[in-house]
């Protein structure tokens, strides 16, 4: 799911950003959503040849074109009201490693972008930040260090305390002034292992082999304070942190995706996505990982997953599917995934829908979990 966000980031940063795209939508060949399908041969290529290596891979990989640190959380406040939040840091390389500018005061080879989102009931707020890399500064405006782990842009900071690298975290991010201020201060703690998606942590995204290095920490337990609509409340709940980097994520035919990260009440986690276009015979590319309580992944074949929109609503003048059917017959799962509220549009430089969902048993309509849904390219 992170990857979608990524797209956002990408877009913005990726050269043409929004405006570039808007100015000449017709000249450019299709390059997937937000430029994520752009060819990137001069960059390092993601593949399954080497396993992930920690703590090194917690930090940034500037030789790859795109990368992100992606956190979503399903929380409840002290009044029992559910609340969703998102914090994402994206990195995009401006030039291939061989063409980087010589170091000089403001010369940049990377652009960073971050999104902050909070949702409660019909309320949804979002903020966006950008930064360039500073070649002569190790502690610049934005960056990500492997150990001790730190990922930041301006004063938004996700970090691990010394000695608890990538197991415990604190996250602080606020935006706005005075009564319009919103944001959170959170403490996160891993209750399970890191989960690798695919062989050696390589996750194919198309049948042609494009893909990314991808691992997750889906077992986060979270406590903290959230400021929204002029008041600050104590919150607690669970979160999911994704790490992903790549140089060409999508094929040029893929136009968007629907990405689910679900916390089931029985302790299992489910990650599933549908990439629209780029599948066999031009169809969709569907993928699902069912993660057991102890972090073991079970790959569900594309023919053993169905993802079907059941209902759309008009959000930001677009038809957005807000109720889905998700079935994994082999695992005996027949689920309905529904947005808590359709108003979860991120009006960022690359706009997309991202919000908290509830998961129900299709037959009994019984609540069996919560999660996050990201939809791009609508």
């Amino acid at each position, binding site marked *: 799911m992170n990857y979608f966000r990524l797209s956002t980031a990408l877009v913005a*940063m*990726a*050269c*043409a*950003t*929004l*405006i*570039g795209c808007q*100015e000449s939508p017709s000249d450019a060949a299709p390059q997937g959503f937000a430029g994520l399908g752009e060819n990137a041969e001069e960059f390092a290529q993601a593949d399954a040849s080497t396993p992930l290596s920690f703590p090194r891979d917690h930090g940034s990989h500037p030789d790859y074109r795109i990368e992100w640190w992606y956190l979503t959380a399903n929380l409840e406040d002290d009044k029992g009201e559910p609340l969703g939040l998102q914090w994402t840091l994206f990195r995009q390389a*401006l*030039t291939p490693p061989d063409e980087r*500018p*010589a*170091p*000089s*005061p*403001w*010369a*940049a*080879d990377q*652009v960073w972008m971050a999104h902050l989102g909070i949702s409660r009931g019909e309320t949804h707020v979002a903020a966006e930040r*950008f*930064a*360039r890399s*500073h070649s002569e*500064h190790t*502690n*610049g*405006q934005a960056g990500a260090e492997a150990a001790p782990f730190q990922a*930041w842009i*301006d*004063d938004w900071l996700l970090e691990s305390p010394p000695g608890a690298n990538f197991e415990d975290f604190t996250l602080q991010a*606020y935006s706005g*002034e*005075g009564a319009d201020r919103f944001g959170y201060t959170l403490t996160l703690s891993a209750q399970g292992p890191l989960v690798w998606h695919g062989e050696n942590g390589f996750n194919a995204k198309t049948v042609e082999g494009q893909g990314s290095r991808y691992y997750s920490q889906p077992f986060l337990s979270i406590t903290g304070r959230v400021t929204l609509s002029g008041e600050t409340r104590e919150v607690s709940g669970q979160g999911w942190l994704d790490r992903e980097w790549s140089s060409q994520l999508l094929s040029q035919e893929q136009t968007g995706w629907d990405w689910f990260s679900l916390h089931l009440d029985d302790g299992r986690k489910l990650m599933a996505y549908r990439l629209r276009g780029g599948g066999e015979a031009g169809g969709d590319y569907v993928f699902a990982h069912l993660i057991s309580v102890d972090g073991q992944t079970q790959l569900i074949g594309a023919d053993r997953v169905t993802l079907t929109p059941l209902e759309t609503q008009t959000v930001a003048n677009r038809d957005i599917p807000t109720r889905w059917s998700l079935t994994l017959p082999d695992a005996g799962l027949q689920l309905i995934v529904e947005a808590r509220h359709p108003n979860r549009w991120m009006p960022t*430089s690359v706009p997309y829908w991202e919000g908290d969902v509830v998961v129900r048993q299709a037959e009994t309509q019984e609540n069996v979990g919560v999660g996050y849904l990201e939809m791009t390219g609508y």
Partner: protein
Amino acid sequence: MILRVLATLLAHYRRHPGQLAMLLLGLWVASALWSSVQAVNATAKDSYARANALFSANLDELSRRDGQPLTREDYLRLRREGFPVSPILEGTLEIDGERLTIVGIEPLTLPSSNTLGASGAALTAFITPPWQTRLAPDTLDLLGLSRQQAPGMTPAVDSAGDRAGDSAEDRAGDSIEDSGQRLPPLALRTDLPPNTLVMDIAAAALLLDRDNTLSQLVTAPGALSTAPEGYRLTRAATLASPEQLTESFHLNLTALALLSLVVGLFIVQAALGLAMEQRLTTLRTLRALGVPAATLVMAILLELLVFGVLGAALGLASGIWLAGQLLPDVATTLSSLYQADVNRSLVLPWHYWVGSLAITFGGLLLAGSGVLWRAARLNVLALGQSQAWRLAYQRQLNRMTLGAAAVAVLALGLVLWLSLLPPGQGVLISFGFVAALLLSSALCLPPLINGVLHLLQRWLRRHPLAHWAVADIQLQLPRLSLAMMALLIALATNLGVSSMVGGFRLTFLDWLDQRLAAPLYVNASPSTLAPMLDWLDARPDVAETLPTARGSVDLLAMDDAQEQGTRKRIALFGITPAPTITDRWPLLDTTEGRPTAWAALSANSVFINEQMAVAQQLVPGDAVTLDTPQGARPFEIAAVYPDYGNPRQQILVPTEVLIQRFGGEVASIGLVVNDRADRQALRQAMTDRFDVSTEAMVDQQEIKRLATQIFERTFTITRALNGLTLGVAALALLATLLAQARERRRQLASLWALGVPRKTLTFLPLFQLGGLALFTGVVAIPLGIAITWTLVAIINVAAFGWRLPLYLFPWDILITLITALGVALAAAALPSIQLWRTSPQAMLNQGAT
């Protein structure tokens, strides 16, 4: 039928091409001057709008409280603390000998409401080597490039204009390829201000050889409720935009153009009236043949339209040409006076064309309304009789007198209104007053002339020829009066404006002498000047060093010295209060004389410039509250000093105080050297010791020459328009005389038949008209003085913030009289020469018809 009637009417001009020429000439000059000034104004407005859209004008700004320059570390620290600031790096570069402003921006953090922040097109290309130079198409003219070839080109840079104080070692350190010598590839953006190159801050830093220093840290308006610790926050609203600063200047231009328009329309009115007069018989015949009055009016209206199209086309074409000639001087004025960058080539929006056409047509219809009225009420049976017309004219004179009185009352009312306003306000009312004064005087003129002629007639009863000449001029008065009114207005304005400019020049040069007390000045960056000061002090050939300093401070509202109170950024200027300076430094107003004022300045008081005194309504003895780095403090005002050429408010303190208490930095050093000192050797030693160019040390005379040059250019357009207006008035008079020359010959023929010698007949009109013009000139003198007073005492105070003493120049007054006489004689000469050349036979024929 209407076309046939129109053809009949137009046939008149085939017989009298002179009248047609005069009509078109009037329309042409009226519309040309008006459209040229409007073209200048439209271009300037376009430049201001683009500059405003750029940044500084609408963004809040941060500066360090300790007065140190901002650096990249400030930027990074503030961002990491969560303050949404964005860096801007500005400097100048010379390319092909033209000075261009370089603006380096950080597009990722620049507030997105901004033109540039939002312009993410090809963001990667913008922020990645070889970067991009964004510039407006009109800036290409300066670089000598065409729009087709420009995109992608990388023009070479002559030299860095103001490389800030980094040492030579620093500069050599980071040269990326040869980007220090060439601009990044050009990309055109129409919404950028002229003469400005916008690029990524990384590219700008390399071009300007600045490592870490910044020019500005900006943030979206209102994004910060309070300034970060150690910084000062200046709200966008408190920074005056070029548009506000230059408003009065453009109003001045518009007023002059309006004057030309009015004078030009006088010509049109005279020409139309004459043509109507001569076509009365034709019109009556047409009516008698059965042409309805409505058709006749329509035909005349059509005729006006035809002339309007011709006149407007001519006027627009030459107006734009004229504007092209005037624009460079206007641009220089605006940049030297207001630091407002104005495009040096014209930019004309659609409403400019519509406006110019509308003004021409509107003016034509106004001038032709009398003709239309008369055509509509045409009495088929009436005979054109001069005597009958004379009676009618007497009634018209009475109406003029009444009108003049009414307008005079209005002028008086406006003066009263002005006297109630605080000084420095009411530019529009002042112009209204000048207009009312001119109109009232112009309306007064014909009745006045008529009265004088009546007296003369009585007095000359025993001199038949002179008696006839006076009676004759009285008869001509209805036609001449309009031309004389135009002459009066032009003469008075000319006198008023030239006295103002002359007075200003005297004051300005005097002031310059007093302000530039030291014979030598050194200009360099503050980091070079600071060590240089010690070095200079130690040299035996230097008798005295007089450093000046610059800085800024927030002026807190008088009633509310709290941190949250309203504040306005005011420039601080520091001088060294040594006798060399204090003996000569000009002061306008003090509490207890100069010595006390200077003593007070050294003891925690301040001086303020006249602009500030006017704008804030302060006088010596008042106090201002300034937000010093040590907190809000009150300062007493000891004196007010004149500060010509500065559009902004300024506070003066001793250099030492400015540097130590307000975090200012050394701006220049005034030098007094020993009599026998070798200036060349000193210059060489300074260049060798410090990293400064030989031009860093400037002679006082050189500064004066430059300042005077700028001054002269400032008033170039005023003078040009002024001269043109007088020219138009002369044309009006000439046109009127030419138009009636034929008829005059007929009347003079009778005199000739009575035995008056032809020589006398030739010179008679010269005396008649010369006398009339001289009288007009005499009336113009008090009127001109009144205009001068309004300009120096009201309009200049409001427009520039300074008041000038009222100077009168007898020579100018004499010139005015001579001009009046010259114009009249020149205008009368042509008909006289024609008369001289007319054969007696032809004269007799004239009498017979």
